[in-house]
């Protein structure tokens, strides 16, 4: 049995070239970049190069606009907290209902602190309504934070357009681009985006390294104060090896971005088509016409996601689910709820997310086992009988809920 990894939106394998680039910074150039001796004399250059590699991938104007952080979450927190600290009179924040927990939970916390949080809803295909967004923009808003692409469905939001609108209203704009960077081309210098978060481990760099892009001239207050690292904007000794690794990963991502949007996309499309054609009562969620090339999120009706994952895992296939059970939470994924996907389908969503390491052979392997897995679980389901759902499933089975 081969192991097939289709959970690349959760995290990715570190590229061999990335590991090779990092090793000297553990064993030889391990000096503190602030030191003046031979153990450190190559480190500053390594960091400089990494900064330029990140700059090329996201297309920003200056390499000094790149601040290295420990992860995407730190970048997100830094961005939002900086905006409200720098503009203490502005008490409103605009975001969406489908952001990652790194934004949503922070906003919930700020709400308790007295901030007004506007959470833009999405339609059944996961799309935003820009008219209602425009109405919310005012001089009371400290920052708009909208994800570039959704981690569950891959749906892409029109962040460039939204940043223009924010800018015209004099409002700062941040985007959590953790899922988008390296998967779709970007040229930040042509946009009005003020801040952007990215995370290394989503693009074949190690875990524990992230970036906050900060447009030159954007008013800023650091989250961590201390040493002079990152020009005083993020104190703390640099994670040198990981920074160099992230630089290399960005260089590779730029090299493969065409491949990602052609070959990787074909793999995704083949899997999606194969599954929806061979399995009844399943559907793809999100905005099918405006999506990351590597992501498909499929809802299998009348069965539950964790069960599907356990059977997939037994077949050597790794994916993830929006079901409540996989996370031990009370609700299925907030993204599925926001799109008004019914419970009986939301609990059965499976996300397959690809990388450049996946192959068509793997896709065919998944297509071989998936129909059997769904069939097995539907046989156990009270909503299912024979080869079809029971008539009026919601009425036929209406349990007492506790």
């Amino acid at each position, binding site marked *: 049995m081969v192991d097939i990894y289709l959970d690349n939106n959760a995290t990715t394998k570190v590229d061999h070239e990335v590991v090779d680039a990092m090793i000297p910074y553990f064993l030889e150039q391990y000096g503190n970049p602030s030191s003046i001796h031979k153990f450190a004399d190559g480190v500053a250059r390594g960091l400089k190069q990494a900064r330029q590699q990140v700059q090329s991938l996201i297309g920003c104007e200056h390499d000094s606009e790149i601040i290295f952080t420990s992860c995407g979450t730190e970048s997100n927190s830094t961005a939002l907290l900086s905006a409200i600290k720098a503009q203490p009179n502005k008490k409103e924040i605009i975001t969406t209902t489908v952001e990652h927990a790194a934004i949503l939970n922070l906003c919930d916390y700020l709400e308790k602190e007295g901030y007004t949080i506007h959470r833009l809803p999405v339609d059944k295909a996961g799309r935003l309504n820009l008219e209602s967004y425009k109405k919310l923009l005012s001089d009371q808003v400290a920052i708009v934070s909208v994800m570039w692409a959704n981690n569950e469905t891959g749906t892409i939001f029109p962040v460039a357009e939204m940043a223009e609108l924010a800018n015209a209203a004099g409002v700062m704009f941040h985007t959590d681009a953790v899922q988008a960077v390296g998967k779709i081309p970007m040229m930040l210098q042509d946009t009005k985006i003020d801040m952007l978060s990215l995370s290394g481990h989503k693009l074949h760099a190690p875990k524990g390294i992230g970036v906050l892009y900060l447009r030159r001239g954007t008013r800023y207050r650091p989250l961590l104060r201390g040493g002079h690292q990152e020009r005083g904007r993020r104190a703390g000794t640099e994670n040198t090896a990981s920074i160099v690794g992230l630089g290399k990963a960005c260089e590779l991502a730029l090299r493969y971005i065409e491949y990602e949007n052609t070959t990787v996309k074909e793999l995704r499309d083949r899997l999606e088509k194969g599954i929806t054609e061979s399995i009844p009562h399943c559907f793809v969620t999100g905005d099918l016409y405006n999506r990351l090339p590597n992501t498909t999120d499929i809802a299998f009706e009348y069965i*539950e996601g964790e069960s599907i994952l*356990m059977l997939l895992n037994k077949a050597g296939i790794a994916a993830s689910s929006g079901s409540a*059970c996989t996370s*031990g939470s009370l609700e299925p994924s907030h993204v599925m709820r926001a799109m008004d996907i019914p419970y009986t389908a939301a609990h059965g969503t499976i996300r397959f997310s690809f990388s450049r390491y996946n192959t068509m052979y793997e896709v065919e392997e998944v297509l071989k086992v998936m129909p059997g897995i769904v069939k097995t679980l539907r046989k156990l389901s009270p909503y299912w009988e024979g080869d079809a759902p029971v008539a009026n499933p919601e009425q036929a089975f209406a349990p*007492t*809920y506790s």
Partner: protein
Amino acid sequence: MWDYSDKVKEHFFNPKNAGAVADANATGEVGSISCGDALRLTLKVDDDTEVILEAGFQTFGCGSAIASSSVLTEMIIGKTIDEALQVTNQDIAAQLEGLPPEKMHCSVMGREALQAAIANYRGEVWKDDHEEGALICKCFAIDAVMIEEMVWANKLRTVEDVTNFTKAGGGCASCHEDIEAILEKVLAEKGEKFDPDAAPAAQPEKIAAVKTPLTNLQRIKKIEEVLESLRPALMADGGDVELVEVIGNTAYVKMTGACNGCQMAAMTIAGIQQRLMEVMGEFIKVVPSTEMAKLTNIEVA
């Protein structure tokens, strides 16, 4: 992924008695809102002897929900309905060699489906009597509804109060922020304000820490005293603990009731050990009495 026991996996991958019983005369349909899981249990009961001849389940749910349903059917076939009603959710969990704390409610769902099916057989209407909330304390598997009820009932004011009355927050302490949020909410409903430095509510009696050397007998009595003080909290959860033996610095205890079969037992033991060490002022290892059998060479000092 969850740390499921082999038994859970066995029942998930090869479920027993899946599907509806063809000519069932008892049906129970329940769901757990905390997971979106739902279960239909169908039984064929012999009208003369009231013995459950056949049982079948249909489950929409996760691995442990399917495993709980499957093992339940195995446990009740051949029992009379009165015997079957004696099966608790802890029995279901124990039969599965334990469930993760977040998944204990899957066994509750099994137990409720059984009650609902038997009520249906007897022509009664089953009413659910408990509500489930978000899991707050993962160490002791205490949910928000339980904490809220205790805060209301016992006029609790601080996190320490909540820990004293429910055990919640008494393990790793990571959930203290969430407990404070519950206190804030409930106290606001009562028209009061949460104050972290408020005087504690009347609480279970504290035992004085040991300061002088003890004789062996005094030491064992003191250990018993500590266990005694923890017992009400355990019993509130349907569990209990009993001191079996003390050898050197190891105290062997027997966990019974709800504690038995819950994967939380290990955490509970860690909590007992912590409390014992605080009072006794010495290192004490608390070990389940089942481990005693493994001692082949007990040295008696």
